[in-house]
């Protein structure tokens, strides 16, 4: 005889990631490391921004480079002599807390002040996955089109700092960086928005100042 039974599970898969993320943050806090998650589209300037920050910020910095194939970006960061862990996501479009947790033993956290986590280039999937970072920085560029903010609202809702990059070529690509700036604030009145050109260096000091501010507030 067979019996049919209904079993209540009520297991939230998202909560599982969130718990791992909280555990990651406790590890960061214990080691005195401030962690920043960098999100943004492919080619928006996440890697360049992190390179600039490594050069300009007077802290002991480590990097987790997440990508479908991470060795290219990891190689770029290694040139600066900072500890780097490449995280290959393979077919996945985002980092999750579990992947980040696996990278942590390979970083000298006790000897670091700042951890930069470069997420996979994508404005959609990473939104669902907290990594345990203290702040989320979203990097977009004018070459993505000045409607990119309106088209991907949720990523801006959860952001702490938004960088609008490549403003030096805004005119050439026919994009209005001021519209993008206003769109971000419309979605999230509390977020810090900074217009930058990593090519000319414009905005970089303001980005550093704001990361510093978040570090001080912690």
């Amino acid at each position, binding site marked *: 005889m067979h*019996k*049919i039974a209904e079993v209540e599970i009520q297991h939230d898969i*998202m909560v599982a990631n969130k718990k791992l993320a909280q555990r990651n943050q406790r590890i960061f806090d214990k080691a005195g490391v401030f962690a920043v998650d960098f999100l943004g589209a492919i080619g928006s300037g996440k890697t360049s921004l992190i390179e600039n920050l490594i050069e300009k910020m007077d802290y002991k910095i480590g990097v987790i480079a997440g990508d479908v194939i991470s060795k290219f970006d990891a190689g770029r960061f290694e040139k600066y002599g900072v500890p780097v862990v490449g995280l290959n996501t393979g077919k*996945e479009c*985002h980092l999750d807390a579990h992947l980040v947790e696996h990278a942590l033993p390979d970083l000298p956290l006790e000897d670091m002040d700042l951890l930069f986590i470069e997420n996979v280039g994508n404005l959609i*999937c990473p939104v*669902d996955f907290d990594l345990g970072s203290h702040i989320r920085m979203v990097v977009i560029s004018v070459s993505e089109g000045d409607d990119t903010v309106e088209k991907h*609202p949720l990523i801006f*809702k959860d952001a702490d700092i938004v960088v609008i990059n490549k403003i030096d070529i805004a005119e050439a690509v026919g994009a209005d960086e001021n519209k993008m700036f206003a769109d971000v604030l419309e979605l999230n009145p509390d977020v810090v928005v900074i217009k930058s050109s990593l090519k000319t260096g414009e905005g970089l000091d303001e980005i550093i100042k704001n990361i510093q501010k978040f570090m001080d507030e912690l």
Partner: protein
Amino acid sequence: MHELSMADAIVKTAVDVAEKNDAQEITEVTIEIGKLTMLNPEQLKFMIEVLSEDTLLEGAEIIIEDIPIEIKCKSCDFVGLIVSDDLDPLVPIFNCPECEGRDLEITKGKECNVKTIKIEKEDEDA
């Protein structure tokens, strides 16, 4: 393929619970997905079907239910469900329906919940 990792976790959860309950097979699984997750239900369903091959979940009916968006407005204390357009489910979350305020907390709609499974097992009393 961000549905893949979620589907993998869903299959593992369902199979794990079924095994603990001495199930011989799972006939039905119900999953709730928040309207604000970046998950596509059809893709998720397909992934679960693929990943459940050769497990207790193989062949089970997969039921996906929506969890609507609920917000709490910090300006006027409105708490309630938001009616969202299927084509543009994200648009309404940025304004309170009562006071148009933008300082909102999203209280529901970001879940991906394995709710129940129906299992078949040997009747111990037989």
